[in-house]
C-alpha cells in the first residue's frame, strides 16, 4: 500500500493541536508506517515538495500570510481538515473580532499596561510583516474544508482515529468520550 502523504500547519493557533498530535505517543511509530509527512513543523519541511493526500490545519486566519498558507494547502492537499477550536471557529484569537484594529494595536504597542519602552510610539508596519485581517476568520470562510475535528485541543485519540480511518478508507468511529471537550 502506498503511504498517504500528510501535511500540517499552525496558523493563528498556539501549537497546542500539534502537541496533541504528538500525544499519540508511541503510536507515532505505527503512524509513520502508513503515512509520510510532507510540509509540516513535525519534520520541518518548509515547502510542499509534492501533492499531499491530507492537510491538517491548526488555527484560523488572522493575517495575510495565514491566508496564503491556507490557500497553498488547499491547492496541494486532496483533503483538508480543520483541526481544533481555532481552525473551526476562530477560537481565542477571535476574541479581538469586534474591536477595531487600531484599538488592538494601540493596546498592544502604545497604551497597554505591559508596554514599557516604546517611547517613539511605534506600531510595527514593516512591509515584510504580514498584514492583519479585519478579524480572525475560521478556515472554512477562506477555503473549502472537508472535515472538522473538534477540541481545544482535539484529543490525541481523536486525531489518531480520524487519521487512521481516512488512510484506511473506513467510517470514522468517534464516540462521545473521544470528542467531548471536558
Amino acid at each position: 500500500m502506498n503511504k498517504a502523504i500528510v501535511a500540517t500547519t499552525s496558523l493563528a493557533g498556539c501549537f497546542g493541536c500539534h502537541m496533541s498530535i504528538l500525544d499519540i505517543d508511541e503510536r507515532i511509530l505505527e503512524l509513520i508506517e502508513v503515512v509520510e509527512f510532507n510540509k509540516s513543523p513535525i519534520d520541518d519541511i518548509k515547502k510542499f515538495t509534492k501533492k499531499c493526500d491530507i492537510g491538517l490545519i491548526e488555527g484560523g486566519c488572522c493575517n495575510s500570510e495565514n491566508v496564503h498558507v491556507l490557500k497553498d494547502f488547499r491547492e496541494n492537499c486532496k483533503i483538508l481538515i480543520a483541526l481544533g477550536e481555532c481552525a473551526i471557529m476562530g477560537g481565542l484569537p477571535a476574541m479581538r473580532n469586534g474591536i477595531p484594529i487600531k484599538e488592538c494595536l494601540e493596546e498592544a504597542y502604545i497604551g497597554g499596561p505591559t508596554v514599557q519602552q516604546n517611547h517613539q510610539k511605534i506600531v510595527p508596519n514593516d512591509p515584510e510583516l504580514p498584514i492583519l485581517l479585519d478579524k480572525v476568520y475560521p478556515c472554512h470562510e477562506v477555503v473549502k474544508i472537508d472535515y472538522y475535528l473538534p477540541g481545544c485541543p482535539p484529543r490525541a485519540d481523536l486525531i489518531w482515529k480520524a487519521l487512521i480511518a481516512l488512510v484506511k478508507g473506513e467510517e470514522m468511529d468517534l464516540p462521545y468520550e473521544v470528542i467531548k471537550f471536558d
Partner: protein
Amino acid sequence: MMGATVDTILSKYRHDSTRLMDILIDVQDEKSCISDDTVKEIAKGLKISMADVEQTLSFYHFFSKTPTGKYTVYLNDSVVAFMMGREKIAKAFEEAVGCKFGEVTADGLIGLFNTSCIGMNDQEPAAIINNRVFTRLTPFRVKELVKDMKAGKDIDEMYSAKTGDGNNSHELVHSVVNNHIRKEGPILKTDVRQGEIIEKITKMTPEEVIKEIKDSNIRGRGGAGFPTGLKWEFCRRAPGKQKYIFCNADEGEPGTFKDRVILTEKAKLLFEGMTMAGYAVGATQGILYLRYEYKYLQKYLEDVIEKAEKAGWLGKNIGGRKNFEFYIRIQFGAGAYVCGEESALIESAEGKRGEPRDRPPFPVEKGYLECPTVVNNVETLCAAVKIMKYGSEWYKSLGTAESTGTKVLSISGDCFHPGVYEIEWGFTINNILDMVAGFNVQAVQVGGPSGALIAPNEFDRILGYEDLATGGSLIIFNESRNILKDVVLNFTEFFIEESCGSCSTCRILPVVMKDKLVKILNGLGVTRDIDDLLEWGKILKASRCGLGQTAANPITSSINNFRHLYTSLLKTKKDYETGFDLNLAVQEACEATNRIANV
C-alpha cells in the same frame, strides 16, 4: 413583602449563600433591579465575593442591574407566538408605551422585554406583566393594558376577561390562563384520594416501592427517558445521610406546557409523588424547582403544601408513621432554559449559575449540596403515584412494549384544538393530527426545538422511546409557514440565547450556523454550506449537556427531512463561495498602520 430591605430579605434566608437565587428574586421583585450597591450589600451579608453574586445575577434573564419599570412586560418570542400574531402585538405595545422592546420609558413606568417561551403556546400571543400572565393578546387589548398601567392600576385589577378553567379560577391563582385539557388519561384523571398512596406505601418497605416502579418500566418524562426506578435505586444505595428529591418543573422547551397544567390541577398528586420518592430513597427534603414564568402559581402551591402539612401528609410522622419525615419547598428559577438539565438545575438551586456539571459523578451520587439527589419530572412523579395505586402490571398494559404507560402532550400550532392530551405511547403522528384537527400540515416539530422536524411522509411514525421520543411538545406547521425563516431560524436563535456559554461548541457554533442559514436565506448559499451545517451539527455533540448536543437539531433535522427547502434557495451551481476577499480584509489594518496592501 412590600418595603422589605435587603437586610430583611437576607435574614429571611438566614444569610445562607446557597439561597442566593431566592434572595436575588426577592430583591428584584422589591426594587425592580439589583444595583451595584445592592450587590455589594448582598455579598457582605452573605460573606461571599461580589463576583459570586454578580455571576449568578448576570446569568438569569429575569434579573436586571438597571430598573425594568414599575410595570415590566415580557412578551413571548417563541415560534408559535409569531404564528399567532406576535408582531402586531409588539408593535401595539411599542406604539402605546412609547419605547422599543429592550427599553424602559424615560419616567421608569413601563419596560418592554422579549422572553423565551413562557409555556402558553396554546393561548398565544401571551405576555407576563409583573408576574401575572396575559394570554390571547390583541392590539386592542394591549392599548387597554397600557392605559391601565399609565393610570397606575394594580396588576390584579387589569384582568378584563373571566379567569380560566379549573384551578386557574382558584382565588390564590386568579389567572386568565386556561388548561385546555382535551384528553384525560390515567395520569390526569382524578382518582386518588390525598394520602391514599402514603397509607399504602408505609405498609411496604422502600425496596418494595422501588421494585414496583422498576417493574412498571416507566422512564423519565422530561425528555431524556432515564428509567425512574433505577434512578431511585441508585440514590437509595448511594452513601449519604441527607438525600434530596427534586421535582423538575422548569419546562422551558418551547412548545411545552403540560407541566403547567399538571401543577395547576394535580399539585396534591405531585407532592404525594415527591413524598413517595422520598420514602423510597430515604430523603427527607423535597424541592420543587419551578420556572419563574409560573410564579403566578406560587401562592396556590404553597397553600397546598401548607394544608398537606396540617393534614399530616407532609412534615413529621407522615400518615402517623414514626420517623417518616418529608418536607417540600419551592425553589424558583429566574429564566434559563438550561436549568431544565438536572445538574444545571441543582447548581441553580444552590444559588449559582445554571451551568451543567461534568459527569460523573451523577446527581444520584453527588447532587444538591453534594448529597445524593433524585431529579424527576412533574409528570413522572404523578405517574409513579398511579403506578403505586394500580400496580406495575396495569401500567405495562398501557403503551408499547418499550414505552410503557401514557404521555401527556402539549400540542400547539396550526390545529383547531391546541391543548393538553394524555395518550398512550404508540400513537402515530397521523393519529394525533386527526385528534387535534390539524390542517394542511406541512411539518410537525416533535419534542420541541431539541427534537425533530417531521415531514408528512413520516407521519406514520409512532411516539415512543423506540421511535420518536418526546418530552411532550408537538408543534404543527401548515403549508403557509416558511419553515426555514419562521421556524428553524427562530429555534436556532433560541439556542443561541439560552446557551450557558460553558462549552465553546455551544457558545459559538449555533451563531456560525445561524449566519450560514441567513446566508442561504438571502440567496447566497452554495451546496458546501449545507454540508458544513451537517458537519457542525456533529461537532455540537461534543458539548457537555443536552442543550449543546441538540442545538443543531433544528437545522440538521430540517436538512435531513426538508432538504429541498434548502436546495431551492441555492442560486448558483458553485460548490464553494463565502465572499472572502483578502484585499478587503486587510484594508482596515493598512489604514491603521499606513501600509500599502501588498497581498
